[in-house]
């Protein structure tokens, strides 16, 4: 494997040190572990948001530390959920007394580890609520799933719930708006290549020269099926139609769109995907209120993308538009 790293065992530590050096005005690292927090946390009078998960999805989640988004981000080993003691340290460090909302992506490990941290914090009388993001529609909703996965739609939760918290809302209100985002966002992804976890040294799987994997998650785990690569329009149509089948937005709805690169796909291609996303939505009478194209939740060096569509109402629009100032997302 050819990677720009030092010791594979130290990728997370090295990365976090580099991030803090790059963004000292936004974030600082806790001594307790691989945890970054907003520079001046805890912020008095504000509910704090803590998220995290396995590393390898940068800028998720430490890239979103700052005004209007997250207060704490816990970095597990690559593609591995962090341990409860680490999440607990983050909770302690950012709680101002108004309580903490945990934004958890729906993976068995993340859910269990964050839950255990919540139990630990509650034993110390810290108010903690949690929400689980499960925006990925790729996995069929049947008895044969552990539920849907959480992917790039999580960033919408960070933005909107973060904005609500910044306004001084209560923990219950911040949680409610986070749940509203989760109820209204759907995503689906695909991959053109696999990726290599540094400690493993080789890819989990390989895709043929002209093969793609549809329904790919963000950990290199296999998706729903493989097929021969088609045009961007055809692939995008498949992803968007699956999302719309699940979401069923009415004509006249307003939505936010996120075309998220997994990191190995050029911005040029993400914009090509967005062209089709926008055409499909417009042809169905759905108004695209705001679009985000870029890398929001990646998967090491994997090539591919995910599309997320969030159905908006007035409250969500207002919070989506609210200012945010973080290393990875800045909205004036």
């Amino acid at each position, binding site marked *: 494997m050819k990677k720009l790293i030092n010791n594979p065992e130290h990728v997370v530590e090295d990365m976090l040190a580099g991030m803090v050096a790059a963004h000292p005005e936004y974030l600082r690292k806790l001594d307790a572990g691989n945890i970054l927090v907003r520079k001046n946390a805890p912020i008095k009078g504000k509910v704090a948001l803590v998220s995290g998960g396995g590393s390898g999805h940068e800028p998720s989640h430490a890239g979103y530390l700052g005004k209007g988004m997250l207060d704490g981000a816990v970095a597990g080993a690559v593609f591995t959920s962090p*341990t409860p003691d680490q999440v607990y340290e983050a909770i302690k460090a950012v709680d101002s007394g108004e309580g903490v909302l945990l934004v958890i992506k729906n*993976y068995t*490990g993340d859910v269990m580890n964050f839950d255990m941290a919540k139990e630990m914090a509650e034993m110390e009388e810290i108010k903690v609520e949690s929400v689980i993001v499960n925006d990925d529609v790729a996995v069929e909703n049947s008895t*044969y799933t*552990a539920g849907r996965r959480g992917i790039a739609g999580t960033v919408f939760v960070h933005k909107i719930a973060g904005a609500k918290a910044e306004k001084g809302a209560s923990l219950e209100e911040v949680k409610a708006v986070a749940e509203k985002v989760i109820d209204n966002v759907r995503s689906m992804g695909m991959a053109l290549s696999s990726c290599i*976890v540094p400690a493993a040294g080789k890819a*989990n799987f390989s895709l043929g020269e002209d093969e793609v994997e549809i329904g790919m998650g963000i950990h290199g*785990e*296999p998706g729903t099926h493989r097929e021969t690569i088609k045009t961007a329009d055809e692939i995008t149509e498949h992803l968007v139609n699956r999302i719309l089948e699940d979401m069923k937005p009415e004509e006249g709805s307003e939505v936010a769109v996120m075309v998220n690169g997994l990191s190995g796909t050029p911005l040029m291609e993400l914009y090509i995907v967005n062209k089709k996303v926008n055409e499909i939505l417009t042809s169905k009478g759905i108004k695209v209120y705001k679009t985000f194209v870029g890398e929001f939740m990646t998967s090491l060096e994997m090539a591919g993308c995910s599309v997320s569509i969030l159905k908006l109402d007035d409250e969500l629009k207002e919070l989506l538009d609210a200012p945010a100032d973080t290393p990875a997302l800045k909205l004036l």
Partner: protein
Amino acid sequence: MSINGKKVIEILNKIADVIDNNKAFLSELDAAIGDGDHGINMSKGLFAVREKLRDNEGKNIGDILKITGMALVSNVGGASGPLYGTAFMKAAMAVNGKEEIDIKDFKNILEEALKGIKMRGKGQAGEKTMIDALEPALNVLSKAIEEGLSSKECLYKAKEAAREGVEYTKTIAATKGRASYLGERSIGHQDPGATSSYLILDTIYKEI
């Protein structure tokens, strides 16, 4: 069978060795139907257990298991950390304060561990998880003890039941954990969690 704290620590160290020797295999199993890190994470966790136990030779067995559980929770990560961690911590409560344990105590340990895993993971048998190795092992162990078999025979039957459980996981589709995203495609692959559970029981059998 009468095992003291020192022997329990020896067994845990041996488990750490066995898992470390099998970590590539476990990760390969995990790569086929998951994200490929089970072996690496378990080995890291058990290494931390070994370190923690080094300074705790004189402790009673309940404390030893509790220390093991907490070290696993803090060092394995992923889904295996909370599951194995909770398993050991609940098991610790079954033998709280005991300086020596017999086969009946081991049955209680396994029973509480399994209950902990089901509670934490919200799982049950037939979903292609570690429960599919541990539940048959517990059932067979209980029966063997009732029949009055020797401790060694009881453990042999239990670990064989776990091994059969691992084989069984090959035949079913995953409905829990990361493998469940594969649905029908997970058939034909043995579950990594069931496999590591079997290796643990097999090591215990070999050491006693």
